[in-house]
């Protein structure tokens, strides 16, 4: 194939007056504005573009669009490297640099091409059978290095991406004649209509052919109010008519840091798919050589880009379209040596003037290794006529068409096999989606336009949508392979899957096309088998004596085409990676030297290290200070929910393990929240503010799911209960004053004397005031010390901290963070749901067996706790651990086991800290039969290290709980 530019008028897409310079494998080449990388390479006579995935066979440009299986390159632009770009879609711009993939040291001489010689040893699924001794891992690195496509960049992507939502009445996908007609009719019918066109200009085949009628169609669509979006590819149809599409914004040039892609999320009342059809390749030996390409692609390169992909052309045909293309190529000046039609004469319904046509003939061999230098024409039956050499430099494949049924299938539509034209077409409509044009199996232009207009009008006006008048392709054979030929006949060019591989799969009794795909890899990777799927399933059917309709297709799943991670991520990078909740008093904490970390989606202080102090040392100092004096803590993230209604008490009894209805106003009680499986999902304190009014504290990370669970149970199960659930976490700040001198500090700044420990008992709540500031003060403790949780209007949190600060520091106290809190609660043996528990932990596992037995009323999860598994004596149970030597910290997450794997683990360490109070390590663990093993010696294994430990009684500090009361 020796490409060259054709003289005008050919080249509707290019601007000859605007030359462009670009790099391919380090060589400077010239192209024109409007070129794709593929058209520019072909115009420069570049035949060898890359190497194949497995066998490293030489590969060139095969198509002219999204279906491209072989013309894959990496684009390099400064620090950017975009892997696996289809050269057929890459718009050329000045400075574009492309590199071949999967080859070393270069595409012309590739060491990996040795795989071609080893091909008999590398059939489908070879890695399931070979390279097993002594171990697959020995070979895996080399095998993986030899296979693959492009290389991803290791540098951060400096480009920007965004996500946009839109709502339309009719969304038309495809900018060809069918799409334009449907969109125009819909818009004229009054529907808000958007048309998505994957390419830089709408018009489809008629457009690049320069048909003047198409300009009028585009103008008419614009006049009708159709919003036409170019460079926008719909890649998925999801539930409720959600269509996702990517819009390429950089277009012809890329500026670092520029907005590069936009992810569109359309909600459409109706979707029209007008994505056209993909040409099916012919199957013959050597059909992967550079210089073999789809016939329609060569036609498009000639007319749209003014590129003759070769001078002497042979067309391997299995459809009437070959003759139209033969005529079209002759018209641009290319010599068509012959059309080798695989079909018998009786099937052929067209001819090309001045072109030699041989029926029942196929290509028996391709001459040339890295480019086509000729071919051998043979009789399809292998013997009726003698072989003939044809000295061509371009072989075109015209094997019929495969309608693009992907979106129809994604939307839930079924397919049917049209035997005459050997294609799958939509079987009726998919929910919310109608196909028009070639993707519906409708090919004659006039019928396409008429049907599409009727569809557009019907969708706009709510009429019955007309069925697609499928037809217009003539007759094609289902299979074009040569049964007797020697040499590899490729089905899937991208994955190096040949007829022999499908044959092997059939021999090994793979009958499902889904299994065939996984076993042979046909239809995988960047092209998702757009040119191979139908051939593969037809062949499987042939080999297993089934019709293609019986074999069926693989499930078409989104995305229709590769989507960049950047587009999916959108703005969610850096600090916007996920929404973090911010404390109202963040500035106050920052001014006190807070070291912020992320806890349960909150950005909050882990500790407040002094100069030169580590996080560990700071936490130790803070915990010590709380035990000995007083600590100030911002507990604002603590989940807060108000429950109101006459049945609130009854509802809380149903939701919590504890009984809340017996609480008097002003009393509070700890509660465990279970799901319906009896698993502990949250805990907290319920306080009664009034007869039907409760204040519920949840864990900081659990408030949304707890509120949602409350709502779900109220709306779905306990529908007779009158309860209103209102989350108020954001409304209330929480300043916790904790330690033996807590009340002393509070009294010093003027808190109401009624809050003193001798008048306000542990586990009570008071509505109080601090000056004009309304407060809800709860006496509850997660540290084991005298503790006041002061809930106040959130905007006053910083002020309150500031007011208490001198009173706290004046008593030797300090502000403390999450790390100190974890130490303090571990010293007391208090659980932290999610740290000490997991998705299997039942209340009995953490010491709540008596509470369960003592509650007669029903509650969520109760029935699950009656299952035998819930009463299994081998269950993991919460215990306290101390190292046998009294000094070695037990690593959190370490396994409790007598030996290293495969010895079965008996449990694991869940929380472990150095106790500043005891000056020794303290730990909590989940241990099999833990409640029976007090005093037992156990082994903790961690990264090959063994640590002896003893099961001890919790709490480690203040076992009688006297400090709670001040």
């Amino acid at each position: 194939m020796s490409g060259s530019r054709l003289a005008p008028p050919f080249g509707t897409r290019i601007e000859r007056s605007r030359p462009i310079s670009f790099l391919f494998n380090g060589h400077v080449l010239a192209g024109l504005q409007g070129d794709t990388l593929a058209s520019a390479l072909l115009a420069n006579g570049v035949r060898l573009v890359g190497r194949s995935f497995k066998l490293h066979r030489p590969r060139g440009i095969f198509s002219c669009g999204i279906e491209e299986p072989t013309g894959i390159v990496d684009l390099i632009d400064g620090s950017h490297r975009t892997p696996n770009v289809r050269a057929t879609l890459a718009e050329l711009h000045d400075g574009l640099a492309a590199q071949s993939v999967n080859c070393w040291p270069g595409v012309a001489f590739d060491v990996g091409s040795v795989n071609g010689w080893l091909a008999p040893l590398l059939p489908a699924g070879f890695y399931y059978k070979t390279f097993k001794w002594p171990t697959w891992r020995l070979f895996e690195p080399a095998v993986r290095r030899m296979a693959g496509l492009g290389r991803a960049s290791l540098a951060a992507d400096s480009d920007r991406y965004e996500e946009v939502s839109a709502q339309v009445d009719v969304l038309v996908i495809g900018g060809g004649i069918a799409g334009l007609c449907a969109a125009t009719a819909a818009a004229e019918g009054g529907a808000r209509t958007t048309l998505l066109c994957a390419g830089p200009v709408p018009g489809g085949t008629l457009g690049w052919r320069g048909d003047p009628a198409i300009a009028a169609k585009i103008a008419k669509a614009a006049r009708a109010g159709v919003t036409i979006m170019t460079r926008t590819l719909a890649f998925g149809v999801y539930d409720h008519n959600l269509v996702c599409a990517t819009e390429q914004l950089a277009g012809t040039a890329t500026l670092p840091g520029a907005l590069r892609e936009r992810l569109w999320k359309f909600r459409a009342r109706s979707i029209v798919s007008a994505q056209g059809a993909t040409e099916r390749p012919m199957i013959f030996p050597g059909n992967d050589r550079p210089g073999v390409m789809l016939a329609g692609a060569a036609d498009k390169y000639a007319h749209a880009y003014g590129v003759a992909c070769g001078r002497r052309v042979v067309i391997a045909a299995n459809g009437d379209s070959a003759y139209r293309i033969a005529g079209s190529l002759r018209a641009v000046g290319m010599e068509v040596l012959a059309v080798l039609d695989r079909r018998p004469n009786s099937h052929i319904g067209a001819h090309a003037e001045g072109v030699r046509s041989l029926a029942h003939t196929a290509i028996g061999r391709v001459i040339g290794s890295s480019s086509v230098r000729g071919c051998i024409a043979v009789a399809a039956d292998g013997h009726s006529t003698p072989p003939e050499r044809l000295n061509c430099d371009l072989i075109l494949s015209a094997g019929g068409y495969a309608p693009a049924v992907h979106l129809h299938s994604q939307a839930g539509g079924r397919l049917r096999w049209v035997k005459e034209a050997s294609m799958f077409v939509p079987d009726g409509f998919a929910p919310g989606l109608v196909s028009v044009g070639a993707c519906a199996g409708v090919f004659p232009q006039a019928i396409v336009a008429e049907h599409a207009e009727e569809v557009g009008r019907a969708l706009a006006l709510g009429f019955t949508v007309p069925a697609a008048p499928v037809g217009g392709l003539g007759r094609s054979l289902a299979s074009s392979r040569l049964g007797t030929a020697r040499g590899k006949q490729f089905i899937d060019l991208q994955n190096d899957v040949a007829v022999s591989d499908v044959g092997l799969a059939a021999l090994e009794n793979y009958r499902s096309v889904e299994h065939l795909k996984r076993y042979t890899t046909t239809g995988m990777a960047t092209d998702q088998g757009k040119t191979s799927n139908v051939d593969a399933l037809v062949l499987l059917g042939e080999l297993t004596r089934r019709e293609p309709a019986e074999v069926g297709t693989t499930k078409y799943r989104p995305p229709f085409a590769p989507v960049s991670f950047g587009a999916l991520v959108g703005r969610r990078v850096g600090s916007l990676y996920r929404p973090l909740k911010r404390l109202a008093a963040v500035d106050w904490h920052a001014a006190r030297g807070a070291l912020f970390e992320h806890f349960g989606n909150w950005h909050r202080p882990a500790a407040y290290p002094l100069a030169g102090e580590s996080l560990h040392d700071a936490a130790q100092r803070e915990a010590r200070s709380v035990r000995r004096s007083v600590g100030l803590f911002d507990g604002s993230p603590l989940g807060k929910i108000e429950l109101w209604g006459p049945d609130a008490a009854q509802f809380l009894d149903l939701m919590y393990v504890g009984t809340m209805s017996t609480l008097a106003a002003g009393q509070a009680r700890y509660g465990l929240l279970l799901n319906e499986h009896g698993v502990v999902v949250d805990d907290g304190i319920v306080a009664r503010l009034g007869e039907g009014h409760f204040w519920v504290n949840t864990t900081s990370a659990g408030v949304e799911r707890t509120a949602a669970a409350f709502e779900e149970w109220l709306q779905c199960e306990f529908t007779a209960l009158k309860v209103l659930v209102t989350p108020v976490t954001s409304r209330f700040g929480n300043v916790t004053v904790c330690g033996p001198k807590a009340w002393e500090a509070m009294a010093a700044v003027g808190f109401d004397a009624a809050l003193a420990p001798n008048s306000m008992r542990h586990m009570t709540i008071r509505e109080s005031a601090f000056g004009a500031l309304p407060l809800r003060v709860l006496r509850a403790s997660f540290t084991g010390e005298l503790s006041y949780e002061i809930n106040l209007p959130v905007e006053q949190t910083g002020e309150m901290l500031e007011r208490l600060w001198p009173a706290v520091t004046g008593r030797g106290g300090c502000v403390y963070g999450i790390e100190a809190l974890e130490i303090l609660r571990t010293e007391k043996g208090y659980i932290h749901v999610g740290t000490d528990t997991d998705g299997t932990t039942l209340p009995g596992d953490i010491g709540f067996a008596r509470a369960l037995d003592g509650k007669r009323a029903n509650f969520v999860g109760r029935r699950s706790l009656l299952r035998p598994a819930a009463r299994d004596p081998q269950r993991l149970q919460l215990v306290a651990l101390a190292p046998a030597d009294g000094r070695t910290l037990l690593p959190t997450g370490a396994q409790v086991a007598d030996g290293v794997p495969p010895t079965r683990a008996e449990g694991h360490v869940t929380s472990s800290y150095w106790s500043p109070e005891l000056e020794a390590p303290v730990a909590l663990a989940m241990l099999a039969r833990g409640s029976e093993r007090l005093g037992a010696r156990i082994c903790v294994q961690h990264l090959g290290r063994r640590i002896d430990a003893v099961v001890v009684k919790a709490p480690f500090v203040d076992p009688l709980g006297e400090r709670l009361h001040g």
Partner: protein
Amino acid sequence: MDEPGQSVAALAAAGISVAIDRSVRVAALRYFDVEEFSLLLHRVLGEGLPLVRRFARGRCIAAEEPFILLWRAPTESWLLCAAAAPIDAVRRDTAASHNACVVDQTGGILALHMSGARTLDLLARLGSPASIPRVGEASSGRFADIPATAVGLDAGEFLLLVERVHVDHLLEWIGETLTDF
């Protein structure tokens, strides 16, 4: 001190301005019987409960203070006002009620005022179409990955009601988006 959004420079680009309206007070009105509570509101505020996904503007009968009453859910509406009087008035009249209660969310829910010809374009980059209200509507959904309630005050003028803890995230997202306008 402690006011969200302080670290973000004035958000204004392409004719769009976004600012936290710190004067807005928010109260969640919760009720079981819609009709009964609507009558109460009508008596107190001169305006009954809004229809689904709608909001109503009015002036409190007692205090002549303007307010917005917006639908949130079948048992919840929000009362927005600059002065405490409308909220206090409703709270007073529901104090003895077994049908309804008032939960003051002032300070916990903040109002972002957005205006400008391209505000809809901005909202389309924050949330899904179903959550973007038309004029006269109030709808809840996710904006910039966080839950929020949007109020379509006028053409090109919206309120976005969002939990205080999320405001910084939302403003940063909006700032990033406006950079590309």
